Each structure stands twice: as structure tokens, then as C-alpha cells.
């Protein structure tokens, strides 16, 4: 047994993961089921030399963390459905401004205020497409408390490395459950720091629109003076209305994530080798899926599970590879419409081979429901 195993809640692991990654600025507005993260930040950040700011709403929270990140602090916020909706417009600023931030969306049951304390996975599409304007984003979804910690560290790393907002989207089950885990020692997990720009300060440009390029970000207050704007802008950060520039700008926002795909897209496979039934899941349903698959295999059925640790960019290649011999793909998720199933269906010729297992009443998905779909 490891010595330092502790009982830790998912939301707690997220907060500790953020501190481990070097986050020192949190701005938020309390909302169930994410509020534990705010409470821990208010308790711990002063001692870590950081700031906890309770803003007047989620629009302000998102604005504040973007400002704080540009001024040099690794910054994040945590919320749930209603607050995440309010954050969308300003989240778009972090995308066009290429500002590293982490947004935790502990998914709860909607629509609207919905079942405020119950789990869901109905924000996947909002995370991907919730803002106006075409853009790309990274989203991760943990399935264990340990993953809450690790993925938060990863989220900050990816945010810095690709100068982009990263959304961590646990469902309420994972945010609120407690499991034993060992908090990693400093140095055990890699932590990515902002790379200092090189060259003459006067020549500094905050952006580079070459395909796949991620340009180093200076901090406000350093010798490099720079502009960031929500408007269409040139590499110098000033407004620029030329169509040629706009085309390069929008393309680069996408291609920088394409170029980093191998780094960003993470999946884990469980017995997918030669499986006839593949279960594709993310978040809490991964656990039910693995449990159901284990029972099915005990009965001689060839059932594998592919866990989507990264939800966006969607792990298309990984799913296609895992499904090579599959005759059926089962996608369990806590929403009505099959937000992940729809993406999986795009990857196969025979649309009927994708079976959905959905829960949209605030209740979790049990292994028995998946077992039924396996039969």
C-alpha cells in the first residue's frame, strides 16, 4: 500500500491540482455542484500568495481570469451549467486573444436551472460550440478523483502550451465523490510554465498566424508592451479588417490545436484488442462501462471500453482504431440527445451499429443498463 493515501473529493482534487500546476488566481461565482472548489481556493490561495476573488457574476469571473492571466498569473474559474452559459461571450475573448485559462464546468442536470444538484453530461456541445464565431477548444473529462487532480494539471499545461482556454468537464458524480488517492509530490507530474518571448522588446508581437503556430505570450508589466483584442486583429494585436488577415487568424486558431493533436487527445483502452462490442465513454459512465464489460467478458463476450479523457478535439482516430473489428459501438452518456454518440456516428458507415444508453433524469447510468445494450 502507498503510504500517503487520503480520502479526497473530486472537487477538492481539482483545486489541489490547480495549485500544484501553479494556479494562483481564482475568480468565480458560487454554484452547485462546483462550490467546494471556490471554498478551497478562498481558504488556500491567500497562503499561497495568490488571490481568490468572488465576482459579481460569471461574466465578471471569466473577464477577471483572462485579465489576471495576461498579467502573469495562472488563472481559473469553476462553475456549472447556468454559470457556464453566462461565461460564453468572454470565453470567446480568451480564444481569439489566445489567453491561457482553465474553466471547470462541473456538469449538472438541465435544461436551465434543472435538477441543480444532480449529475449530467449535457454540456459537451456547449463546450464545443457554445460561443458565436468559429473556433476550436480543448476539453477534458475525468472519471476518477485521481484524474480530477491529474487532468487539472494537464489542463493548465495544455492551456499554457497552446495558449488557449481549456475546459475541464467532470460530471457532478465525479466532482462530489470521494476516493483514496495520493497527492503527487512536487516534481512528480510535469508542470508547463509560460515561455518567455525572445528578441527585442520593441519588436515583440503577441501573435503569429503561421499554420500551427503558438507564439510565446509576454505578461503585462514586462518590458514587452502589447495589445490583446476581442476584435479581429493582426499579429501586432491591433484591429485589422483585411480579409487575408482574418483568414489566417481564424485558421491558425484551429491549426494550432490540430498540430498538437497527439499531445492533446488522450484516450485509454480497456480490452479493446479484437473486441466485437466497443463501449465509448467519458466521465462517470466509464466506470459503469468497465464494470459491465468485465461481467460480459466473464461470460465470454468480447467487450472493450475506450475512455475518452479528451472530449474535444474529438478522439476520432482513436475511436476508429478501437472499433476496427467491432460490430457494435455502445455510447453511454448522461444526456438525452447523445452528444457523444452523434460524434461517434459520424465516424462509421453503418449508423445503426451505434447504440445509445442515455440517462437524462438526474440519475446515474448503472452497469445493468449497459449490460442490456451489450446483449
Amino acid at each position, binding site marked *: 500500500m502507498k503510504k500517503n493515501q487520503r480520502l479526497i473529493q473530486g472537487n477538492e482534487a481539482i483545486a489541489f491540482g490547480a495549485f500544484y500546476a501553479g494556479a494562483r488566481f481564482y475568480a468565480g461565482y458560487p454554484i452547485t455542484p462546483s462550490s467546494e472548489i471556490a471554498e478551497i481556493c478562498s481558504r488556500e490561495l491567500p497562503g499561497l500568495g495568490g488571490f481568490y*476573488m468572488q465576482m459579481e457574476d460569471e461574466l*465578471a469571473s471569466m473577464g477577471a481570469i483572462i485579465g489576471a492571466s495576461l498579467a502573469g498569473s495562472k488563472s481559473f474559474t469553476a462553475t456549472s451549467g447556468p454559470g457556464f452559459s453566462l461565461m460564453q461571450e468572454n470565453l470567446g475573448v480568451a480564444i481569439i486573444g489566445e489567453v491561457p485559462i482553465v474553466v471547470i464546468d462541473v456538469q449538472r442536470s438541465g435544461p436551465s436551472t434543472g435538477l441543480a444538484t444532480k449529475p449530467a453530461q449535457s454540456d459537451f456541445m456547449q463546450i464545443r460550440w457554445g460561443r458565436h464565431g468559429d473556433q476550436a477548444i480543448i476539453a477534458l473529462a475525468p472519471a476518477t478523483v485521481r484524474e480530477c487532480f491529474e487532468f487539472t494539471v494537464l489542463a493548465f499545461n495544455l492551456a499554457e502550451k497552446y495558449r488557449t482556454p481549456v475546459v475541464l468537464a467532470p460530471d457532478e458524480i465525479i466532482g462530489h465523490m470521494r476516493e483514496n488517492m495520493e497527492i503527487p509530490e512536487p516534481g512528480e507530474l510535469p508542470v508547463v510554465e509560460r515561455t518567455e518571448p525572445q528578441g527585442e522588446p520593441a519588436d515583440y508581437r503577441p501573435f503569429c498566424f503561421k499554420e500551427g503556430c503558438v507564439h510565446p505570450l509576454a505578461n503585462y508589466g514586462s518590458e514587452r508592451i502589447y495589445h490583446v483584442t476581442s476584435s479581429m486583429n493582426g499579429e501586432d494585436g491591433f484591429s485589422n479588417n483585411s480579409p487575408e488577415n482574418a483568414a489566417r487568424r481564424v485558421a491558425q486558431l484551429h491549426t494550432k490545436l490540430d498540430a498538437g493533436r497527439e499531445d492533446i487527445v488522450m484516450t485509454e483502452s480497456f480490452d479493446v484488442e479484437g473486441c466485437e462490442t466497443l463501449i465509448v465513454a467519458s466521465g462517470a459512465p466509464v466506470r459503469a462501462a468497465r464494470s459491465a464489460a468485465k461481467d460480459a467478458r466473464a461470460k465470454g463476450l468480447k467487450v472493450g471500453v475506450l475512455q475518452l479523457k479528451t472530449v474535444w478535439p474529438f478522439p476520432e482516430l482513436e475511436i476508429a482504431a478501437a472499433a476496427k473489428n467491432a460490430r457494435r459501438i455502445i455510447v453511454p452518456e448522461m444526456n438525452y440527445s447523445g452528444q457523444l454518440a452523434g460524434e461517434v456516428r459520424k465516424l462509421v458507415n453503418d449508423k445503426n451499429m451505434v447504440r445509445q444508453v442515455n440517462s437524462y433524469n438526474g440519475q446515474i447510468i448503472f452497469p445493468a443498463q449497459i449490460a442490456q445494450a451489450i446483449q
Partner: protein
Amino acid sequence: MAHATGMKYLKQDALPHMWCAGCGNGVVLGALARAFEELDLAPEDIVAVTGIGCWGKADDYLAVNALHTTHGRALAYATGVKASNPKLRVVALMGDGDGATIGGNHLIHSARRNMPLTAIIVNNYNYGMTGGQFSATTPANAFTSTSVGSNPERAFDICELARAAGANYVARETSAAGMKLKNRIKEALEAPGFSLVEAISPCTTQFGPKNNMRRPVDMFEWLKAKGLPASKYDKMVHPEQEGFFKTGVLVNRDAPDFITRYEAMRSRMQAGGRE
């Protein structure tokens, strides 16, 4: 000392600016740049945070750090910049729609928090950029593109709002008085805690023509006639004050700002003020 021009703080290759002939924004921008110069601020230590609107485009002309944000939210972004690096001098440039209407909530909470920022609100009594619709500062009964039968709503007094919400420094001038404006902005930049300067300014394309001030000069004359220093304004009794506004320094106090209070809380916690 040579007369401050403020040129060092302006992005000269971006000039001339895009604002309409007679618009007061240029005057306010000039006053801001001169205030920076007279205080000898290093451009790298300044962050200008702007919202969306005509005045919200001021960052296009500034050679300091800048963050052009969303409509109404400049103060929220500015709050994050300041808390993240309290050494920075942070100014939020907003129109009356931006700063006091869609962003009214952030205005009162920034003042309540006494966040050490300087808000410079150019109040041209309407949404200039989108074609002159009424805002929360459009006077009652005024005509705008969305109050063609006269404005049925009442107006906010931005300065009174900031005072009531707890701002340390509040002043109002008009863009017809550039020198005074520069002095007020200087004082605001030096004030501890939340400071706000309201610059009443003509919208010569939208608001003026719709309200019987066809030529730009009509609006400037109107501003000069209506803005009264406290010495005159306070002598008038209530119904006479109608239609006039008070200029000069309206609030000047030094309540501890947010960062100071946060640091005090941090020290208490570190001294064992928690379980």
C-alpha cells in the same frame, strides 16, 4: 517644463482617429495621454482596458498595454489584471452604454470593492457606435433612434451611483474643458482605491442632431452652458438645477482599497487566524 503633449503614449501611425468631426473622444484621449505624461508613467506599467463602443476603440490609439474586451465587461477584466499584478496602473475606458448600462453591475461592484482602478466613462448620452439608441444616461424625454417619441425612461447619474457604491474618487468634466479633464484624470490615477472620471461629451452625429443641436458647435455650447462647478451649482435650489450638471471633484476620500484589505486579511490568516 515643456508642455505635455502625451505623444509618447499614442500610437502615432494609427492617427488620425476614426471618431466623427466634433466628437469629444479625441479630447478625452488627449487628456488621458497628457495625464500619463505629467505623472511620468512608464508605458509598460499601464494597462488600458476597453469595452465596446466608439470610446471603447480608444485602445487602437494607445501605445501602452491594452486589452479590448466585450461590451460592458472592461471593469471585470481590469479587476483581474490589477489583482494579478497590483503594480500595474489600470485604466478602464468605457462609454455610458458600456460602463453604466450593460456594465452597470460591474461599475457598482468595482466601486463597492474599492478596486484600485481608474474608470474613465465618456458619457455622450447614447449608444454612439450602434446608431444612437438610448442608454441609461439618456435624459428623460430626449430623442434617440429608439426613443423617437421621446425617452420614457429616466437617466442614471453615474457620479452619484459611484459615490453611493463606495468609490474613493469621483469627478465630472466635459470634453469642452480638456485641461480640467486632464487634471481630473491625473488626480484619479493618483487616488487610492476606485476612481471614476465622467467626461460629458457630445455625440455630434447621433444625439446632437436628434435633439435640436444640429451643428457640432451647438453641442459644445450646450455643454459649456450646462456644466457648472460646485460653487455655482450648489447655490441653486432644486427646480433650478434641472438640466444642469455639476462638474469638478465630487468625491475624494481615502478608504482602504481592495488590495490593501486583501493583504490585511492574508496577514491575519498567516498569523493563524484560521483553524
